């Protein structure tokens, strides 16, 4: 998975709410998906060109005290986004 390149689905809206969280809103269905600050960072870093490995490196550079299991957690997060049809993994 580390070599895959996540691409956000076009037309989704990232709306920042209170407490640094955000909602990923699908205006065609009205469904929403909550993102924490790490999720927001990943979402805004995905462009279809950067690999999952690149995102992890960027994440480690951006946040302090990144836990050792972050790679598993990020991959789980990306799988969930894929299952919800919010991203493609190219």
């Amino acid at each position, binding site marked *: 998975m580390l070599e895959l390149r996540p691409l956000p689905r076009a*037309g*989704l*809206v*990232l*709306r*920042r*709410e*209170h407490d640094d969280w955000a*909602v990923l*809103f699908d*205006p*065609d269905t*009205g469904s929403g998906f909550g993102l924490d600050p790490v999720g927001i960072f990943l979402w805004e870093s995905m462009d279809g060109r950067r690999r999952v490995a690149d995102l992890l490196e960027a994440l480690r550079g951006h946040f302090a005290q990144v836990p050792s299991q972050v790679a598993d957690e990020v991959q789980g997060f990306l799988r969930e986004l894929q299952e919800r049809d919010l991203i493609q993994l190219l």
Partner: protein
Amino acid sequence: MSTPRAVDLVITNQCNLRCHYCYHFEGAGDVARDLPRSQWSRFFEELERHTVLEVGLTGGEPFCRPDLPELLEDLSRHPLRFTLYTNATLIGPSEAAFLAGLRRLRAVQVSLDAAHATGHDACRGAGSFERALRGIRALKKQGLPLSLQVTLHRLNAADLEKTAEFVLEELGLASFQLNSAYDMGTCSRHRQQVCLDLDERRAALTTLEALQRRYPGRLRASAGPLAQLRRWTAMEQARRGGESWSQGGRLSSCGGVFRKLAVRADGAIVPCNQLSGRVLGWIQTDDLRQVWQQSPELERLRRRQETRMQDLPGCSGCPWSDWCSGGCPAGSAEGFGTEDCLRAFLEQGGISIEDLVP
């Protein structure tokens, strides 16, 4: 929130009806002119820029705007969902087909007050029931997401059970929304004829209680007797159980000022359509985010929640002051909704809380 999540837009001040209980006409939102389409379209772009997710389009009657189709097409191009509030009397097969072709239409909400012309037309004018029904059937035929709003008043409250049967069984809708005539706008002039008196409110609560059991989950309300019944029941159950509510006991009302705004037909930005006299800014000249973040009036309304209910005159010593949020402030000069006051309702009605919440 850095911007409102939802915005209600009065896209026209024109209406083909003059309902006796209308809150809009004869109030501060009853303005002399409608903004042109170009102005609204520029504002739709601003809504997208500020990630507003939900828009409500109301009036007046939206279908009185000759350029409504173009306006809706403009709006549909933006990544947000919208609800259209209408009396449906101007909707025929072609209007319904047009709506069915729109992306991102969340719902069409139609006002229907009774199962028969007598109850519906009493406040809305002769012939409006048949025309509304024709519109509802056209919308249903297109498979549009349809919701109905029933406004209770003195001339239809006794038929509430029949209305529920008609909407849920005969028309086959999943649910409907209830409120009641509220002493604002045109309604104030017809107060005696339309606003429920105490006996009628009490009777409505009894009927609503039975209807809730008969149609679980199919009656909705954000204001009016059903909303009061649910709120009061929850408050009394919390009192009996000794629960504490994190937002309870504060003058927070519906909390709308923390998530939404409204815009009048002339472009004035207001806290909500019921508070249309409190102008916060203008979409022609002001930035929505700045209004949302910096309006002193909005800040004052938000700070109402710092007031403890028990510190308000008339609320001190109230058994429910730890759970009450003060009701809707729109119709009350005192700044809180006396109509929503549980203690006043019990005292004036001569009933006990055990009668209301067994």
